[in-house]
């Protein structure tokens, strides 16, 4: 079963606008990661936030983590057409983590129109 659930499933915005994607998960975690995927090919790591962190920035990306609500959000500021892609959150299994298993959500499909 899926650990992470992304919301919305699809998002369409204009260039220059901000895009916000949300992720919810079910169990305790050690960290949460966000990945990007273009056209069904390989995923690219964007950012990792650990369970004891609340916010992290990387360029135009801002990630928040609320472990009490078991949720995270990814904000992309000043979006560009090149940001068009699918975005996935991925979590480990916290205390149940026996190895390297990451559990991915179903993703948010972002479309940025020029």
């Amino acid at each position, binding site marked *: 079963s899926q650990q992470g659930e992304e919301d919305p499933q699809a998002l369409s915005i204009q260039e220059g606008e901000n895009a916000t994607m949300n992720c919810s998960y079910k169990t305790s975690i050690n960290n949460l*990661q966000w990945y990007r995927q273009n056209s*069904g*090919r390989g995923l690219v790591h964007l950012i990792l936030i650990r369970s004891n962190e609340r916010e992290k920035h990387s360029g135009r990306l801002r990630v928040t983590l609320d472990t009490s609500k078991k949720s995270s959000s990814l904000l992309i500021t000043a979006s560009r057409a090149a940001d068009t892609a699918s975005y996935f959150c991925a979590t480990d299994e916290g205390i149940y983590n*026996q*190895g*390297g*298993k*990451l559990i991915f959500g179903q*993703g948010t499909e972002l479309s940025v129109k020029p």
Partner: protein
Amino acid sequence: DAGVTQSPTHLIKTRGQQVTLRCSPKSGHDTVSWYQQALGQGPQFIFQYYEEEERQRGNFPDRFSGHQFPNYSSELNVNALLLGDSALYLCASSLGGGANEKLFFGSGTQLSVL
């Protein structure tokens, strides 16, 4: 610095056949994870190899097996192919096993089972 490479990029098989997919990790990485991604879904963890052993396994039948070689490259084997095995198979490499490091993904092998 070569990233994660997978071969072949595309493959067409018929039901009941067997398939072998190959992966070379990013230079310096010693851990390989395999994921299956059905169309419109997030990647699903198959298993992870570290120090030539299967470290953790997802909810996949025994028809899915793997191997890691001393040079850290890896193979994924699927026997008795079913139509439902049609998917994008992604290989990801990391360092040191576990789920606390970001993954570097290859571009995937698109498997079609007819």
